[in-house]
């Protein structure tokens, strides 16, 4: 779980605890990003930069807030399942954030 929270922090997402191994998270595109240091050929690849054009208009930026819930489950054989559920926000931004989060967790 700590690994997940660290990854969220890297992506400048905020969270609060809702329940047992359950966090509700909030992310605003354009407020920051993450640096994937392993990509040596493409040194500045930030998910936040892609959305930098949005942050100039505060009304649009607030409408693009992505809120989602993260729940950790235990599966069989010492395996864990991370469930991500969108609560609010544009669909593709949510999917893009999930991709960035899973890449940060080195699952993708």
């Amino acid at each position, binding site marked *: 779980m700590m690994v997940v929270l660290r990854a969220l922090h890297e992506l400048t997402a905020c969270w*609060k605890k809702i329940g047992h191994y359950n966090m509700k998270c909030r992310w605003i595109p354009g407020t920051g990003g993450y640096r994937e240091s392993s990509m040596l050929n493409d040194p500045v690849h930030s998910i936040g930069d892609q959305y930098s054009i949005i942050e100039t208009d505060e009304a649009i930026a607030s409408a693009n807030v992505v809120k989602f819930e993260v729940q950790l*489950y235990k599966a069989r054989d010492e395996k864990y399942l991370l469930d991500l559920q969108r609560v609010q926000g544009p669909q593709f931004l949510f999917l893009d954030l999930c*991709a960035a989060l899973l890449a940060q967790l080195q699952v993708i």
Partner: protein
Amino acid sequence: MNNPHAEDHEDATVPGFDIPNSPDSSYNNVHPGNEDDARDPPVVPPHLQHTLLSYPASADASDSIPLPQHVILNHLYIENREAPRSVVALGFSHRFRSKFVTVVLYKPVHRRGSTSS
């Protein structure tokens, strides 16, 4: 309350009954304490497996796709394919008024440590 974005039509709201958003400051980024981690996480519920996107492709060809169960709406689906792969599919189903929309995003997989040539 006027909101120009069509996105909000997705949640049918009655004026005056809108749930206010929780204050942004409530997202305090507190790390869970040790007592929280003492117990194991809850067991995986079985209904999460039955997403629209997890149905085999052949079954969808002849008939229309079945309606998604409400319990899996807005839950992320990730394609489970053997590595190595260059593209991964992410998707989820959500409700728009009386219909269901499934959104799929294909993203390239960045291989670590490899040089592009």
